[in-house]
């Protein structure tokens, strides 16, 4: 009787701790504003929701995408000033003015973000400070519009349509609504393709690009969402306090407070910024109460100290620390054994027979037109010709090797093909289509050309599975499908056992496999491998060679740079040799090993013996 009830899908979920515990928290939040009948606590609760919302919105661009903005106060102020001015000058309801302000702030964000995202982290932070400073100056000195330092006063006319309320409780629920919305938005982003893209570009922008991530566009969208909420927060602030001036809404300390909350709570996590607000906002109020009487500024001394200590010693924040306790805690709640029973029935998402080759056709059909053609590729760095007039072709299903001494221009050729560099002259064709100078790299990935990097570029703070999922997302939209594909891929490259390990914890050999798995999951037809066995021991090399052969058996064309002769000679059908940026030989492995020029330039006399 009871069992049949539980087996119904919607109902049994409620008994799982991981479902009902968050629901209990949500219920707690919903009653929080009406629990205290005291203006002081009501104000505190509003401030917690308010700061939580803003910190979480900063976290989208600063935490997820890793773009450190110290200029968010500008967007906050633009939101506050726009809705207030529209209300004061034209009587436009702040509910509408809120969206006008958000729209304007987003436009400004695009205008400033688009060029500034090219800057490296420290300089991006600097540019955003400077930008916010310019906006503050404009607000202070454009007196005709903003009344400058005098500020704007909104007269107290309660009414729903005026966004002005007699008591504090309506404000509390509006702030709570905003906070729940940003949590929902953050959660959806974190578990979607877009979220994976943001975190991957934060971890390694080049690697993300090579897997088809439109990094510039992703950063910009993250900034736009973040700014939207920040500006709405500005309107809320204006309507709650009914007074704004440049010093309060355009201040550097506001810009610092948002990341502070996010960092203390747990940067780049969904609820970290909220947790930060729940801990630091009451602390701030208490400190102001206890210490503020003695002197202003003391609370900021505590804040600053906490920030410094946190980034040096606890960069993962409270949530990072709690997360190790959260799962065990859930397991001790009633209903946890139910979860175990249910999860046991879930069929495994992968089967072990995935390494079977697809219909493959490795035979060299010379009648076919080549899959890939490079003609007279040339690239100069300053006066140095890194690649000089290099031409070659790759046939479908072939494994082409590329060897040559260090500095011969091998990796440069890979970079020219994959959009990390543009050739000075020459022509590149893939599947009969010209792709010369196609940029940025994600476009090349989408043409079904994949690559790995000589110095492996794992997304360190993502698990092995998540690393591969980033690649899989280039071909599928849904996280579920990407997870399935990535699981199969991990099985194929022999990393299934490390599925949930962070990439940073893997050995070099495993990181090289992961590199292969990431590139392969973009389903390339041509895969460029840059020294995938360098630095490995003989047994590990054997393993990788086996995987590469399996890749080739699936019909994927391979172009391989390698210094380990055993690997390149056994794998390649043909080899080209580069020396000082020029192609000095091209033929089968056996002939290459006898070629005089190649021996002189690269292999050395011992190789003959």
């Amino acid at each position, binding site marked *: 009787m009871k069992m049949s009830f539980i087996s119904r899908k919607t109902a049994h979920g409620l008994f799982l701790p991981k479902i009902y515990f968050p629901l209990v928290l949500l219920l707690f939040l919903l009653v929080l504003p009406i629990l205290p009948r005291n203006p002081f606590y009501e104000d505190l609760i509003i401030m917690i929701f308010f700061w939580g919302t803003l910190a979480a919105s900063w976290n989208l661009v600063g935490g997820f995408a890793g773009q*450190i903005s*110290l200029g968010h106060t500008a967007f906050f102020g633009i939101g506050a000033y726009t809705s207030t001015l529209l209300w004061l000058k034209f009587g436009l309801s702040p509910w509408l003015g809120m969206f006008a302000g958000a729209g304007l702030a987003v436009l400004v964000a695009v205008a400033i973000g688009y060029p*500034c995202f090219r800057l490296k982290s420290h300089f991006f932070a*600097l*540019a955003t400070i*400077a930008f916010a400073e310019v906006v503050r100056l404009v607000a202070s*000195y454009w007196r005709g519009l903003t009344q400058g330092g005098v500020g704007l006063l909104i007269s107290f006319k309660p009414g729903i349509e005026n966004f002005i309320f007699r008591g504090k409780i309506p404000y509390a629920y509006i702030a709570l609504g905003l906070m729940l919305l940003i949590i929902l938005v953050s959660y959806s982003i974190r578990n979607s393709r877009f979220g994976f893209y943001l975190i991957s570009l934060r971890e390694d922008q080049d690697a993300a690009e090579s897997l088809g991530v439109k990094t510039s566009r992703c950063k910009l969208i993250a900034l736009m969402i973040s700014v939207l909420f920040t500006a709405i927060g500005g309107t809320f602030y204006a309507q709650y306090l009914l007074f704004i001036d440049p010093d309060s809404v355009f201040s550097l*300390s506001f810009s610092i407070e948002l990341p502070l909350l996010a960092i203390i709570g747990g940067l780049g996590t969904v609820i970290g910024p909220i947790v930060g607000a729940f801990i630091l906002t009451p602390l701030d109020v208490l400190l102001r109460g206890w210490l503020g009487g003695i002197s202003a500024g003391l609370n900021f001394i505590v804040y*600053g100290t906490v920030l410094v200590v946190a*980034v040096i010693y606890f960069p993962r924040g409270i949530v990072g620390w709690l997360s190790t306790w959260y799962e065990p805690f859930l397991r001790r709640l009633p209903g946890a054994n139910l979860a175990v029973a249910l999860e046991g029935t879930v069929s495994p998402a992968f089967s072990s027979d995935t390494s079977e080759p697809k219909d493959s056709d490795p035979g060299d059909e010379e009648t076919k037109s080549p899959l890939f053609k490079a003609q007279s590729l040339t690239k100069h760095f300053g006066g140095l010709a890194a690649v000089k007039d290099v031409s070659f072709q790759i046939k479908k299903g072939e494994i082409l090797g590329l060897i040559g001494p260090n500095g011969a221009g091998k990796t440069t050729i890979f970079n020219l093909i994959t959009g990390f560099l543009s050739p000075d002259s020459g022509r590149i064709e893939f599947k009969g289509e010209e792709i010369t100078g196609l940029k940025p790299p994600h476009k090349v990935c989408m043409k079904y050309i994949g690559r790995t990097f000589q110095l492996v570029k794992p997304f360190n703070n993502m698990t092995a599975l998540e690393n591969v999922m980033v690649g899989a997302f280039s071909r599928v939209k849904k996280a579920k499908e990407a997870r399935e594909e990535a699981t199969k891929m991990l099985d194929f490259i022999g990393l299934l056992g490390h599925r949930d390990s962070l990439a940073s914890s893997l050995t070099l050999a495993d990181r090289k496999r992961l590199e292969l798995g990431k590139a392969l999951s973009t389903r390339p037809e041509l895969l460029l491998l840059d020294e995938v066995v360098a630095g490995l021991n003989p047994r590990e090399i054997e393993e990788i060679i086996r995987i590469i052969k399996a890749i080739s058996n699936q019909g994927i064309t391979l172009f391989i740079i390698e210094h380990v002769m055993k690997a390149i000679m056994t794998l390649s059908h043909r080899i080209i040799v580069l020396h000082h940026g020029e192609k000095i030989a091209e033929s089968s492995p056996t002939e290459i090993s006898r070629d005089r020029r190649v021996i002189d330039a690269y292999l050395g006399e011992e190789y003959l013996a």
Partner: protein
Amino acid sequence: MLATVIQLIINGLLLGGIYALISIGLTLIFGVLEIINFAHGEFLMLGMYASYWLFQLFGVDPYLSLLMVIPTFFLVGLAVQRIIIQPIINAPPLNQIFATVGLSLVLQNVALFFWKADYRTVRTAYSTLCLKTGGLMISLPRLVAFVLAIAMISALLMFLKRTYTGKAIRALAQEKRAAMLMGINVYRMYQIAFGIGIACVGAAGAILIPIYYAFPTVGALFVLIAFVVVILGGYNSLVGALIGGLIIGLVEAFSGFFLSPHLKEAVYFVIFILILLFRPTGLFGRG
């Protein structure tokens, strides 16, 4: 008109000398440690207060106070480097940025706590003295500040060119790995570079106090100018910082006169953003 222009050039250059001294410390720290010291302005503020209190309590002339401020700030720099910068030297940029941002928050509010938000300055016998020649006016303390700033910058450049420590620091700024292989004690050089950077900005504070007010947030004002100068001069070129400082001084003098003193800040922030976007290596930086 010509006299006005010459007067503006003089004003601009005199101001620019101090900007250069503030900025050169920031450049040195960034060039060697690859960290932007967001608390740089707060050390300027502390330098101003140090000189102010030496004058108020012990009657030490602000220029004489340099003899105490420079070594003290050097030691403070060593300590800050050891305690805060060293642990995050290889950390992700976010940790680096917020370590010094947090420090700036602390220092600013420590000043507010102890010395309140009052504007304080030093009134010396020479505070209002002016040299007048041919219709031109040159404020004496500004001239002295300029000469001292240029002298200190020259001394620093000489030190970096001539001494072993100086050469080691420059080597480190160019190529860290190679410098390590040559047996340079990287951690020690990091400390010394940071110490020198802080000593420079502390000294700038001391020579600024006879002509400007000290208050807890004064650093924020100047550090933004310093950021502009550093970007303009090329963030790893000390000579660039010197010339950048002079240029920004001129820009400030001219835009203050021809536009509005209120807009001079807007002008150099626009320059800042334009330089970052179109010539991120600055006017004198190497690529």
